């Protein structure tokens, strides 16, 4: 593999395509599996063109059965392959939940490290696209509670590219949550170069400070990083300086980066689309309350989805964390 790099402006979706292409090129054991990912290129076209370039044995249109997809991917991984499974939409990962939770996550542990199942599961997730039921959910907490899985979610095209490559290279199973509402957002992406991480803590383990600030720490990941950044803009206009931490990884959580920030700012607001109750924000609030006990000037605020099924599209903008709601939460924190 050449370590030459080039820089292009790409959509978020295309950055993943290029990351997958790089993985397929550099590792002939890498392969893609899923519903409609071949000729159609997936319903979001993320795998567009890859079957044509890498053939039907490496870019596989599977039967319509998510448990089957993940279960056979585990078998392929046991035989030395590195399958990347595409789940068509967030709400359709649940038929595979048993395979992910009882098999994929535990294979290494069960075998005392003798077996390795480097399976990546790509899940377009989150709302805001005006879709019907089951097409806008954020189930990341339902996976991150389970040990043995890595759970990540990129927020920028560059991270999408780097993280998917790192995920395919990772010896651990990775749940790769793609904020589908960001698929069409664009950014500069440096392509090529060595696979990030390659075993050492990197993009799959560490948070990124997306914007520096002093008065409050906004913690977000995936789709809400953009919301948090917009809120930070709005707050700046009001004279409040917000730091934005983009977690990137949900399991493991980069608590040191968050805690370091909160110790400086004294205030923390977590933003995610998934329901608040038992969501990632709960863990962050618990950890920050613990580790920043003496620096916190207000309780950690959570701006998140409600304890209701994802609503109809006509109401999703009332349900989703908005810039306004983030600003409101910051105001609450500041007025403590």
């Amino acid at each position, binding site marked *: 593999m050449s370590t030459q790099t080039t820089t292009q402006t790409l959509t978020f979706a295309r950055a993943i395509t290029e990351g997958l292409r790089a993985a397929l090129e550099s590792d002939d054991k890498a392969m893609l599996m899923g519903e409609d990912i071949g000729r159609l290129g997936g319903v979001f076209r993320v795998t567009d063109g890859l079957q044509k370039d890498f053939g039907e044995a490496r870019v596989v249109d599977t039967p*319509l059965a998510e448990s089957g997809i993940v279960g056979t991917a585990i078998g392929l991984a046991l035989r030395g392959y590195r399958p990347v499974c595409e789940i068509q939409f967030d709400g359709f990962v649940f038929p595979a939940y048993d395979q992910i939770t009882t098999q994929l996550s535990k294979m290494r542990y069960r075998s005392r490290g003798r077996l390795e199942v480097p399976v990546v599961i790509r899940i377009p997730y989150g709302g805001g696209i005006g879709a019907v039921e089951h097409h806008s959910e954020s189930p990341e907490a339902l996976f991150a509670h389970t040990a043995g899985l890595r759970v990540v979610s990129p927020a920028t095209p560059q991270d999408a590219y780097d993280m998917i490559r790192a995920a395919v290279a990772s010896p651990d199973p990775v749940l790769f949550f793609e904020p589908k509402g960001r698929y069409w957002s664009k950014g500069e992406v440096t392509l090529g170069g060595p696979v990030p991480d390659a075993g050492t803590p990197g993009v799959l383990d560490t948070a990124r400070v997306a914007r520096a600030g002093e008065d409050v720490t906004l913690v977000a990941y995936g789709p809400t990083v953009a919301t948090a950044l917009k809120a930070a803009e709005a707050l700046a206009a009001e004279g409040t300086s917000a730091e934005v931490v983009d977690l990137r990884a949900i399991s493991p959580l980069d608590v040191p980066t968050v805690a370091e920030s909160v110790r400086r700012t004294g205030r923390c607001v977590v933003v995610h689309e998934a329901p608040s109750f038992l969501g990632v924000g709960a863990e962050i609030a618990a950890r920050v309350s613990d580790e920043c006990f003496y620096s916190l000037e207000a309780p950690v605020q959570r701006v998140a989805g409600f*304890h209701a099924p994802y609503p109809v599209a006509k109401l999703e903008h009332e349900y989703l964390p908005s810039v306004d709601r983030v600003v*409101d939460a910051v105001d609450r924190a500041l007025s403590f």
Partner: protein
Amino acid sequence: MKIDATGGSDVAPADVTPLVQLVAPDGSRVVGPDDAALRERVAHLTTDDLRAMYRDMVLTRRFDDEATSLQRQGELALYAQSRGQEAAQVGSARALAGQDYVFPSYREHGVLHVRGVDPVDRLRLYRGEDHGGWDPNEHNVHLYTLVIGSHALHATGYAMGIQRDGLVGTGDAARDAAVVTYFGDGATSQGDVNEALVFAAVNNAPVVFFCQNNQWAISEPTTKQSRVPIYRRGEGFGIPSVRVDGNDVLACYAVTAEALERAHSGGGPTFIEAYTYRMGAHTTSDDPSRYRDLAEEEQWRRRDPVERLEALLRAEGGWDEAWAAELEAEAEAYGERLRDGVRALGAPAAETIFDHVYATDHAQVAAERAWFREYESATAGEEVAR
């Protein structure tokens, strides 16, 4: 007569499994040596009955066309056409008794039409205004289920409930009840559909599995789901199974009537594969030109189920131009009502987000609702920083 799956000489698929057919693509009756019993099941249908079926199919297709253009105009978020599958849907639904219950997938507009579900209500889901849209118990039609195959189990459980209610084999046709569940060829790969076959067989439940094999699951041809004809799946579970020409409304009616009689009388489940074709895109978001060729589409266009019924009516003197013109006018009016009705649908009130999460109080919902109410009233009219 059982003939090969091509339904004529216009295509030559590898698959030449026999399928039940009562009307040929040219509208002539098919009379074979061993289908007397099935012919018997349609013998009582009068010209008026056939016209009623034709009307169902025409209005279903009109519904499709209207919904598709409503989607193009931004009035719907999405829409999944039933075009090409009208015979399978109308034929099977017309065989149902009122007390029978339907568990549809998401494309059974023809079934819902026959059952009397309000056309506007049928589009609430696709408008993003409701996750359901109608009262299931009003017409004995469950809501659309979007997680492929899950509802096959609900249908089976519902049928087990009918058994427990003592409404199987009563000998009273007005009381005996059964369930029909609809799903696609792709759905047969899901564990849930297969488990439904297990539970139905073991419990001898009064449920009909009606699989519309429309040749495609989005971009994947049926060969990606099975290497043998789909109807054979049912047999492996010990369930009587049949492949029917899904573009032949009478054959679909007949095999469903037979299956329902079996279910009603305590004979248990049946698996029906209706061999048909999805003439349109998977949904309005789909682009079939990426994965299938025009020649195939053209072949199936020549087996259009609506045209076949028209040909039958013409062949048997049931076609009447005045009647046809009236139907056309009715369809026009129907389309207009539908357009107006859909456009008149508002958005539900924001606070309904919190309604019906639970039947009873739930502290988390109550707290969030209270917060939301306060937040909404506090920010109402405020200059916001979006």
